[in-house]
């Protein structure tokens, strides 16, 4: 669910593309660390398989069973416990949750993003906010939601507040990085002409990074849709995720899971196509 988020978090260094030279020494630090990392991962993977609690599961049986189930799920979907209209409405609820989280996250993140950008605030403030973001991101979303559920009760209210945390953390990082790209000279020129901090922000900083902000925010909306599905299933936040949880754990109806999966898949692909179009439009504009 937070997978997509990571894809955009890695800034790919451009200097790797052309003209990468052979390492001067065949065994420099990078090579050693690379091999060590791969070796560690391999060892841990083997150990993991050895240590799993299989609970006397017949692996082949389960695997064949899964293939049979996948066939049922994807080739014979049906809706039994609710209608097509209800499913569509629940998808809208999930989209609504994603929208509210993204909106609240964006509003709060603009404020903190400005403070986290080193060229607009001080280094100290920036570090404090960045470590807060690291902390927020370390707590899985579902735990945020469940912690707030104690105070607000299970349901959409706790879900929106809990899910907003990760949106804030993610968007602060994205916004502040695009704010930091602003030329120092522009800020200095505005300062010299007597503009105050707010004027600099609204006349120079935000207009120059608005296209980035829109595309990052929409990407987060896409992620939040997946998160909202998961929260519906795990934390009773409502929406299509909750129906999926019911179909799986309560009615044990595989065909219904298939139908719901198709709904989710359709929305996810529509959002992805839409995001690609927004990105292209912003690039050309």
């Amino acid at each position, binding site marked *: 669910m*937070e997978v997509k988020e990571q894809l955009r978090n890695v800034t790919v260094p451009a200097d790797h593309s052309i003209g990468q030279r052979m390492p001067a020494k065949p065994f420099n630090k990078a090579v050693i660390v690379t091999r060590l990392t791969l070796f560690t*991962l391999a060892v*841990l993977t083997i150990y993991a398989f050895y240590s799993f609690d299989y609970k006397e599961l017949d692996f082949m049986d389960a695997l064949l069973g899964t293939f049979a189930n996948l066939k049922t799920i994807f080739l014979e979907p049906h809706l039994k416990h609710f209608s097509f209209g209800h499913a569509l409405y629940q998808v809208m609820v999930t989209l609504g949750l994603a929208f509210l989280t993204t909106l609240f996250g964006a509003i709060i993140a603009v404020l903190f993003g400005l403070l986290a950008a080193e060229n607009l605030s001080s280094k100290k403030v920036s570090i404090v906010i960045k470590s807060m973001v690291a902390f927020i991101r370390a707590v899985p979303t579902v735990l945020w939601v469940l912690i707030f559920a104690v105070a607000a009760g299970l349901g959409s209210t706790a879900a929106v507040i809990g899910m907003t945390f990760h949106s804030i953390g993610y968007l602060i990082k994205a916004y502040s990085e695009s704010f930091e790209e602003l030329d120092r000279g522009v800020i200095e020129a505005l300062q010299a002409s007597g503009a105050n901090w707010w004027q600099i922000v609204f006349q120079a900083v935000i207009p120059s990074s608005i296209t980035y902000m829109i595309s990052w925010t929409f990407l987060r909306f896409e992620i939040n849709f997946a998160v909202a599905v*998961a929260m519906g299933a795990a934390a009773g936040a*409502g929406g299509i995720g909750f129906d999926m949880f019911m179909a799986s754990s309560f009615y044990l109806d595989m065909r219904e899971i298939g139908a719901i999966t198709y709904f989710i898949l359709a929305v996810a692909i529509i959002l992805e196509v839409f995001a690609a179009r927004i990105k292209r439009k912003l690039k050309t504009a």
Partner: protein
Amino acid sequence: MQADIFAKKKRNTLAFLLLLGAVTILAMIITEYNALKGFASIPKAIQWGMANFYPTAESLEKLPVILEKLQETLLVSIAATSAAAVFALLFSIFGSNTTRVNAFFGAITRGIATVFRNIDVAAWALILLFSFGQSALTGYFALFFGSFGFLTRAFTETIDEVSGGSVEALKATGAGYFSIIFQSVIPSSIPQMISWILFMIETNIRSATLIGLLTGSGIGFTFNLYYKSLAYDTASLVVVVIIAAILMIEYASNYVRKVIL
């Protein structure tokens, strides 16, 4: 006309804000989100957290059990990511524009990856629960499928970016397909691929918590158990342990990334 441009800009902004407001109200109505209750719950949650949500001496006794579960979750995440990376490497080589065997095959591999990427890990967990039950393998395969879809896309982009020129050069010298892959494509993209794998492991630990909640295994289940039985002090200890584990892994992967990139 200058004045017109500003007037138009203002109108556009206003229209955009009105639309945003309308969608917000609509979203609040259909999700039954109560804004007042929402904002009121933040101070309430903080108050409650201060009063109940911290580990006590009693809960520390449960630490060995919790750490054991954490180890299971960590291992599941790492194993799922590593195995997914191997498959993703294969698929990305066949799916990338520079190294694919032919266009038809490339489109198929990319299509498979798109489907896998867009079905959420939570959905995978619920699907797999039928045949694998409450074993660690449910979580393992859910993470595996999710990571596979994502890593295939990431690796494809890496290969496209890194090896365009060198592949052409090697083709010109008459190198065979396999020597191009093993001598040029993989060595030049391995640092970035490792970086992606490390990110995926971090993400998967967070997702593993969620999957654990759904499928009854690992650290997520442990949290749920204490949470549902209102043992909030122990539940908070689980949260602390998860935070510590994720920050540690983030630190380690940042170090590796800094050295190899």
